[in-house]
């Protein structure tokens, strides 16, 4: 178990940045996002959720799949095999880290998505345990411990003036040992502080929901009136889906002019009217009702049926950012049943 003084962080960062592309949570114009590290960034260790979840490091909002050109013969340039620079992700929160496991189920199951696999492989994730969950944090409802992050390569815990770093994987060990010069051994006192932090956290949540029987309950709700009531105030924007750490739908776009073209993969949102729009004009999800239902059924029924886990980590981004306060908390409570209160 190692530790580093917060005052030494920028040294640590520049040293890590020499090894790989280092992304840290930084504040700019009032918004915190993972930002490529450089001197002078306003790095924040207190902000819980960054705006855009770190899924983007494995599954970018926009990526070139291939380029082509035809003259005498057709020439193809594949980009998947080029993906995956060495990357270090610093201070991913436990909820976001546990979302990676869900993305893996989608993109690493046979046949694996090459670009995703390469990026995942080449990224070292340093998680930062939460001390104080926010009012909209409900990760514990999905059995996520805000102070632990088993899926991370390294777990960092804030113990006041210092960060304790616990390597949890081989990748993590490598990173920590590579930075040994800047780290010092954690004392038994530090270890107690860490334990202490991890025990206290339970009492600091204000929000939670019960998912007992949620999936089963929704089996019978496809045709329920509930959706009729729910969708009315949805404006069909992509805020919830784009900010969701587990949403993973994409579209393939073709940009061609003359004899050249490029195929692009980009995030798409089931909330958008054109998401299921077909060339012939038919749209199997003609109104926002079907779209809203789809999103929640997918998160709370289809996905768990297929992969065993609910497609939500309780990060609360949709709760905080939905313009019309239509979020998964509401659906779990109203459609799910038993409520453990706030």
């Amino acid at each position, binding site marked *: 178990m190692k530790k580093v003084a917060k005052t030494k962080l920028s040294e640590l960062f520049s040293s890590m940045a020499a090894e790989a592309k280092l992304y840290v949570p930084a504040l700019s114009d009032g918004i915190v996002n993972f930002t490529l590290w450089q001197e002078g960034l306003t790095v924040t260790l207190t902000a819980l959720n960054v705006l855009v979840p770190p899924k983007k490091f494995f599954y970018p909002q926009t990526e*070139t799949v291939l380029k082509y050109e035809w003259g005498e013969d057709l020439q193809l340039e594949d980009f998947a095999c080029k993906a995956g620079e060495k990357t270090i992700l610093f201070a991913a929160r436990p909820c976001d880290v546990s979302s990676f496991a869900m993305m893996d189920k989608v993109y690493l199951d046979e046949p694996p998505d090459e670009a995703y696999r390469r990026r995942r492989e080449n990224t070292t994730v340093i998680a930062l345990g939460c001390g104080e969950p926010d009012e909209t944090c409900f990760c514990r409802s999905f059995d996520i411990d805000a102070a632990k992050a088993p899926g991370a390569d390294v777990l960092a815990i804030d113990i006041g003036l210092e960060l304790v770093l616990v390597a949890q994987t081989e990748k993590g060990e490598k990173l920590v040992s590579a930075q040994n010069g800047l780290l010092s051994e954690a004392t038994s006192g530090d270890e107690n502080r860490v334990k202490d932090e991890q025990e206290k956290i339970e009492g600091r949540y204000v929000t939670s929901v019960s998912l007992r029987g949620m999936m089963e309950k929704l089996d019978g709700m496809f045709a329920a009136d509930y959706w009729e009531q729910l969708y009315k105030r949805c404006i069909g924007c992509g805020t919830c889906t784009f900010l969701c750490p587990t949403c993973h739908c994409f579209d393939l776009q073709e*940009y061609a*002019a003359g004899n050249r073209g*490029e195929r*692009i993969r980009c995030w798409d949102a089931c909330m958008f009217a054109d998401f299921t729009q077909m060339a012939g004009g038919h749209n199997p999800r003609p109104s926002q009702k079907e779209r809203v239902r789809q999103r929640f059924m997918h998160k709370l029924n289809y996905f768990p049926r297929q992969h065993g886990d609910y497609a939500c980590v309780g990060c609360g981004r949709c709760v905080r950012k939905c313009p019309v306060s239509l979020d998964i908390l509401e659906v779990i409570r109203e459609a799910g049943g038993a409520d453990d209160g706030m």
Partner: protein
Amino acid sequence: MPVTNEGFEPVIVAFCCNWCSYAGADLAGINRMSYSSNVRIIRVPCSSRVNPSFIIRAFQRGADGVLVTGCHPGDCHYHSGNFFTRRRLSVLKQLMEYLGIEPQRFQVRWISGSEGAKFAMVMNSVAEEIRRLGPNRKLRDVR
């Protein structure tokens, strides 16, 4: 300070209304008034047919400059087309400058069917300004 862009050949897209500016371009040709070959013309019936989306699209696809030309206000073949053009493209141009796009990138001029010399002159001056400005990077697709 003056920037020189050696060997930079800008792509300049000019939307010309069929009745005045396009005729002006033809007249320049008939009188053999040479002008920059960087300028490439797209013919539209009236300057009021030019959708701001066309202009942005040209920049995205790699145009270094875009020029919209029409009949002088009051001479529009369709009577009022260019009056609307004037309002629309004034708004668009000021907006683009506000967002940090160089003013010279996008220009609007009135050139009549009899102003062949003016056509050539304008094309040269615009081409010169764009050449000095260098390639459009701000509005170009990364692709």
